[in-house]
């Protein structure tokens, strides 16, 4: 077993801490001055707000949306996949899983752009869309895991003991799936983070002056040569968070016995 590198922990901890605690450190009343001035800790942003406060305020949406979307994808995808895997009729399996193949033929960013335009802006919408994009993969993984577990003699032995559906399909299967799903959750979380950041950058789902790291990167880009912090700091935070998460989960995964 390898030691978790402190660098990776730091890369995750700093953005996460800023994202979760940051909003409480922002004063309710903020002075507004001209854009891209060197005032304050990190200067001002493209509408003259204090960049440091924007940084404190702007992580929550990225992090929470990614977390909520991942959670939602699991809440829907896992029962979906398990239902398909345990369905007695093959047609149920087909009806549940085939449409997901269709989703795969639509590029996720196209889906994201069109759906976001249909649904209009809003955090809930963004969560829903990112979850929708993540959910087919979750359902497939859950189905594959459930199929594997459902074919295990241990489960059949339980059925031979007359165990109830609840104990076999929920308790036993749930516990057995926890590990593969937990391993997958890391991948899913980083890709949700990626999608949320990309969406925000594209101006999908968030107001254009939102306190949001990805939006900050986009909107403050024009001032890159005047006041680079307004771009650099949020960009570095996003990159650190996703790289750090990736490193941590990669390490955690490697500890799994082959």
């Amino acid at each position, binding site marked *: 077993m390898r030691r978790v590198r402190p660098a990776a922990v730091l890369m995750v901890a700093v953005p996460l801490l800023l994202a979760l605690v940051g909003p409480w450190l922002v004063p309710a009343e903020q002075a*507004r*001055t*001209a*854009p*891209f001035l060197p005032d304050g800790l990190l200067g001002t942003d*493209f*509408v*003259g707000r204090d960049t440091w406060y924007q940084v404190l305020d702007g992580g929550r949406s990225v992090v929470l949306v990614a977390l909520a979307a991942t959670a939602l994808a699991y809440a829907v995808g896992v029962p979906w996949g398990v239902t398909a895997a345990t369905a007695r009729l093959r047609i149920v399996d087909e009806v549940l899983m085939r449409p997901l193949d269709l989703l795969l033929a639509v590029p996720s960013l196209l889906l994201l*752009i069109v759906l976001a*335009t249909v649904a*209009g*802006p809003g955090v809930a919408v963004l969560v829903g869309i990112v979850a929708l994009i993540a959910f087919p993969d979750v359902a497939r993984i859950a189905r594959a895991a459930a199929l594997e577990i459902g074919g295990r003699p241990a489960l059949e032995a339980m059925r031979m003991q007359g165990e109830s559906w609840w104990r076999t399909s929920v308790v036993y299967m749930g516990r057995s799936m926890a590990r593969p799903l937990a391993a997958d959750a890391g991948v899913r979380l980083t890709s949700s983070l990626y999608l949320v950041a990309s969406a925000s*950058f*594209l*101006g999908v789902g968030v*107001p*254009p*002056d939102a306190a949001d790291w990805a939006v900050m990167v*986009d909107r403050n*880009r*024009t*001032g*890159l*040569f*005047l006041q680079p912090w307004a771009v650099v700091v949020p960009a570095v935070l996003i990159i650190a968070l996703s790289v750090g998460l990736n490193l941590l989960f990669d390490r955690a995964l490697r500890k799994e016995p082959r």
Partner: protein
Amino acid sequence: MNAITRRGFLGLSAGLSAAAVAGCGSGPTGAATTPKAGGRLRAAFAGGGAKEVLDPHLANLFVEAARSKALFDKLADLGPDVAAQPRLAERWEPNADLTRWRITLRQAVFHDGRPVRAADVLSSYARILDPARGFRAKSSLSVIDLANSRAVDDRTVEFALTRPFVEFPNVLAAFGAYIVPEGAEDFSRPVGSGPFAFVSFEPGKSVLLKRNPDYWEGAAHLDELQFVIANEESARVNALLGGQVDYAHDLTPTTARAHASGDRMTVVRSPNSAVQAFAMKLDRAPFDNRDLREAMFLLADRPQLVESTLAGAGQVGNDLYGKGYQYYADDIPQRVRDLDKAKHLIRKAGAEGMTIRLNTSTAAAGMVEAATIFADQAKGSGLTIEVVTGNKDTYWADILKDGVMSSFRSGAMPIETHIAQRLLSTSGTNVTKWARPGFDALYEKAVSTADATARAAVYGDMQRMLHAEGGYLMWGFADWIVGTATTVGGVSTAPANTLDWARFDKVWLG
């Protein structure tokens, strides 16, 4: 990639106000001061992708307007003060009751060598007025009674109008009212009378034009003119900095600030350009209450809005359209923020504790930001402003019907046109639902008054009405900013939508 969010519609949403600031005429700027002939100028504009067309009557985007201007001519166009001045029309003369106008055409030829004739003018206008088609200039031209208009000879047209109309030259300068050869329908290889002739077109990508040596106003300096599409501002700036283009249209104040002092580009500002506003609807609660409208006027901290949203690149507005344009009522005192009075008026209107939804969208740059800042400014006034961001693609149609207050932005046009299109009870795009029979009557009086001074007085009365109780909170006028390579000369600072904006026949490469 804000290609999706920042596609500015030209025309009306992003025009420029004329020179309100001293020295802001149409004087050429640029490092190279001596005109030089030859070369190809590459100009980067935001585009409309595959929907771009070369049909000048369909033009909607800045890039389409600029290309139309290079390829075609109108009978008249707007000068730096946004008043009509003759172009293909050498001169115009109305009859005594202003219902018949005789236009004398200049000696000009199309690129294929045919002369521009009265018949071309009439057929172009007939095409625009075709009831089965939705050309943009149609509503402006609808004052013409085409059936009774006629070609007196090849170079003389006599227009019959449906009513007395002293501002008829504004119609001739209307957006998209270009003269095309008689019968022209296929614009895949357009033929016009403009300073440049068509070479090639790749939709969504580029248009290449070459100098028209026989242009009636004298041939252009440039050999070739290429329009290329870069939807994102940063891409236009990068392309300019990377030497891939020589002219980048529509830059942000921040870019201007970052590069103004450097030697990598020349920044050309057309100060005081697009008007920035909030529109309140007068036909419904709560803004059917005049006190509440005034309270909103008094809540706005205009200098801060200009400073933050426009990064200082603009001027404070006084709730009236067309600062510095002909007939602008600059004798009306500037409104300033007065929170106490606003609070009092809000209480008086019974709007305390009320939440007002302010519709906005990214349909034009800066609108959402301005709305958020205004909502901040309203804090502590007794009412709450909630910013609602709507769909950018349908925003302008949506705010025409829905909501009570919305972000608004407009480009340059004569004040008369602004009134006719937006402030009469019959106007098609009356966002504020300002419908006053008295005001309509004043408009009728103004446009049928031949005497300029008397007419100006009527316009002044109308503007006083609007300032006192209108629905537009016009808080600022933005600069229009263009970046060019340091070798480019002759770029005008005139507002967009006016004659000298994006006028590449006057530009040269040093």
